[in-house]
């Protein structure tokens, strides 16, 4: 690990002023410390924000505001999340291990980097995300875990977060603070697709920090679920995951949220599937038709073509679970 300066911030103002534009913020360190040890990340300075106030508060409209320093395990176990946003609780519990969830913060979870093996293999592989212009060894390599949506000729990596898939389905807002002031962006617009610059994961500006995420209330959020399909039943990244929430009114789907994980460089909101489902009576055939509509745009590689069928079946299974229309 290369040497770096370490400062601990007591509050947000201090964190922003110490960080300037050259430092990185340190939360639980479960991803960043690992990447620094492998010299994939080498920040000159770390500003430890893991002890900033970490609150989970009700908002006036019945939603929830979650501080960026809240630990993943704390958020997953919070009564309001378990009852009003169960897909979020389940997604958090599907991620990593209990030890890592105890360390990892909400802000850090959003900012974690891909687990593409070629990104990690600094000694032996080409990676445009790690070294722009170097090339991508995943495209013709072992790409079982890679993207089927939104990839480019430069990068086919996926975003590894489970939590973000639920946040995408919930239309979460990310609150940011930086030298230019505060701003808020939808989580769906926070992560970037690779395009010509896979080295840039998000829209975060240098020195800018995530301060909180905000969730709106909705009946679909309260009737929601998260299912993760992986190569072993626990402590593994997703091949496919589905976060979904459904509100049924008068026998029809009044509100529908579907997002997919393990398929793109960002959590993937299945808007085409939602369009097919909205206003219809829930039925397994409808779920499969909706999944078909979404997956029609998939672009697969040698190792991951199975994800199309797997995603369809998982979408249909989760929607069946939520609506009782298993058939």
């Amino acid at each position: 690990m290369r040497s770096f300066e370490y400062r601990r911030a007591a509050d947000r103002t201090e964190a922003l002023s110490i960080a300037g534009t050259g430092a990185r913020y340190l939360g639980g360190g479960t991803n960043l410390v690992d990447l620094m040890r492998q010299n994939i990340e080498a920040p000159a300075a770390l500003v430890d924000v893991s002890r900033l106030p970490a609150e989970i508060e009700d908002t006036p409209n019945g939603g929830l505001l979650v501080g960026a320093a809240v630990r993943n395990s704390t958020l997953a176990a919070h009564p309001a999340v378990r009852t009003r946003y169960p897909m979020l609780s389940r997604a958090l519990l599907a991620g990593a291990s209990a030890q890592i969830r105890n360390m990892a913060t909400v802000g850090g979870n959003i900012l974690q980097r891909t687990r593409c093996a070629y990104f990690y293999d600094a000694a032996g592989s080409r990676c445009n995300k790690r070294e722009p212009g170097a090339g991508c060894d995943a495209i013709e390599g072992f790409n079982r875990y890679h993207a089927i949506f939104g990839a480019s000729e430069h990068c086919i990596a996926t975003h590894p977060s489970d939590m973000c898939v639920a946040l995408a389905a919930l239309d979460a807002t990310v609150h940011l603070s930086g030298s230019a002031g505060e701003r808020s962006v939808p989580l769906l617009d926070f992560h970037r697709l690779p395009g010509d610059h896979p080295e840039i994961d998000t829209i975060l500006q240098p020195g800018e920090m995530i301060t909180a995420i905000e969730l709106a209330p909705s009946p679909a959020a309260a009737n929601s679920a998260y299912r993760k399909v992986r190569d072993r039943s626990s402590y593994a990244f997703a091949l496919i995951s589905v976060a979904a929430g459904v509100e049924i009114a008068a026998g029809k789907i009044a509100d529908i949220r579907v997002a997919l994980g393990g398929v793109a460089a960002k959590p993937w909101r299945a808007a085409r599937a939602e369009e097919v489902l909205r206003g219809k009576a829930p039925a397994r055939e409808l779920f499969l038709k909706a999944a078909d509509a979404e997956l029609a745009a998939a672009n697969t590689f040698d190792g991951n073509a199975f994800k199309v069928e797997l995603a369809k079946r998982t979408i249909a299974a989760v929607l069946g679970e939520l609506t009782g229309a298993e058939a």
Partner: protein
Amino acid sequence: MAIVINGSEYPVPDDVRVSLLDLLRERLGLTGTKLGCNQGGCGACTVIIDGARVLSCLTLAVQADGREVQTIEGLAASDGGLHPLQKAFIEHDGFQCGYCTPGQICSAIAMVAEFRRGDPSYVTPNLSDGPKATTKQEIRERMSGNLCRCGAHNGIVDAIEDMLSGGAV
């Protein structure tokens, strides 16, 4: 700047790159905590900080400043008597080579506390109710961050189940 480890205070290392694991093993001689993968994949380095199980390999020692760390060395009674979970591991053959055992035991002790305060897991059927029963499925899911390459997982799960039902912790 100090870290309390098993009840004693130690200074935080000057080099901020030192992990909590390296501080324990290389600088303080507390070699009970084990170095496995050194990248958060195996759980051998699990310790308990302020009651929560964490990975010491991914924790910078400086991040533990002002915190209370408990390692396997801090578990036995002052007269040297084994912790009830240590006894249960012996009784149920919860290890072969023993390398993962300190991490397994620290992890399990904190896991029992999580379970008893009603924290759900991925396999808990009803999230709002929390876990109802200490099933093997619940134990396996909650212990999935600790790998045992000898394959003693069945004995490990039995030992933890025994402790949970006996109320020894």
